[in-house]
């Protein structure tokens, strides 16, 4: 599958696979920090409109792919309580050359923060 999207309530792990067509694999990890508005926190709670979030992520990736061609993309977003220091989101893009993969990941993260119905709903 060229695009894999999952919203999960558990710790995230990178998918492992062999792929000899992609010369570039760019991975981004969004990590929950231990501070929110200047105070120490132990983690963040996330909520998602799961069906829409998965659909929107897939649509955004397909749109990006038309301009910045890549072979495969994986997006894993965690919901529920995410402890500080752990990943809230993993994004992996595989393309022939590094330019497309870097661009696709950067553009995807901007769009995620504008148009994907996932929310931080509180710090603990």
């Amino acid at each position, binding site marked *: 599958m060229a695009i894999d999207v999952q919203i999960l309530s558990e710790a995230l792990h990178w998918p492992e696979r062999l792929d000899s067509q992609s010369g570039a694999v760019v991975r981004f990890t*969004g990590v929950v920090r231990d501070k929110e508005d200047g105070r120490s926190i132990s983690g963040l709670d*996330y*909520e*998602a*409109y799961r*069906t*829409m*979030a998965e*659909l*929107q992520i897939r649509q955004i990736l397909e749109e990006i792919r038309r301009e910045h061609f890549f072979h495969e993309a994986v997006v894993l*977003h965690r919901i529920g309580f995410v402890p500080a220091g752990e990943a*809230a*989101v993993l994004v992996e893009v595989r393309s022939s050359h590094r330019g497309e993969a870097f661009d696709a990941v950067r553009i995807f*993260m901007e769009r*995620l*923060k*504008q*148009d*994907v*119905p*996932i*929310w*931080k*709903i509180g710090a603990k």
Partner: protein
Amino acid sequence: MRFEDDPHPMMIRILFFAKAREAAATDEILLPLESAPDSSRLWDYLVVQFPQLAAMRDSIRLSRNSQFVQDTEGFAAGDEIALIPPVSGG
């Protein structure tokens, strides 16, 4: 995404998320389609039933069956409409 086993075929389902859910103190309501046939009429209903939502109206986007709603789009029986406050994933 339509809810296929809906026993009320002329209804629409409204979902509330994040700050909209907190303001409305509910995560879901069912409405007759005739009460909310489009975004404008839905908001007329929502600000009366949930006055706390009024101040958030300009920042909340609506989705219809998991796609953001275009201004002039009407709703249909069985639709799933959601209130989408500013998102903050990642």
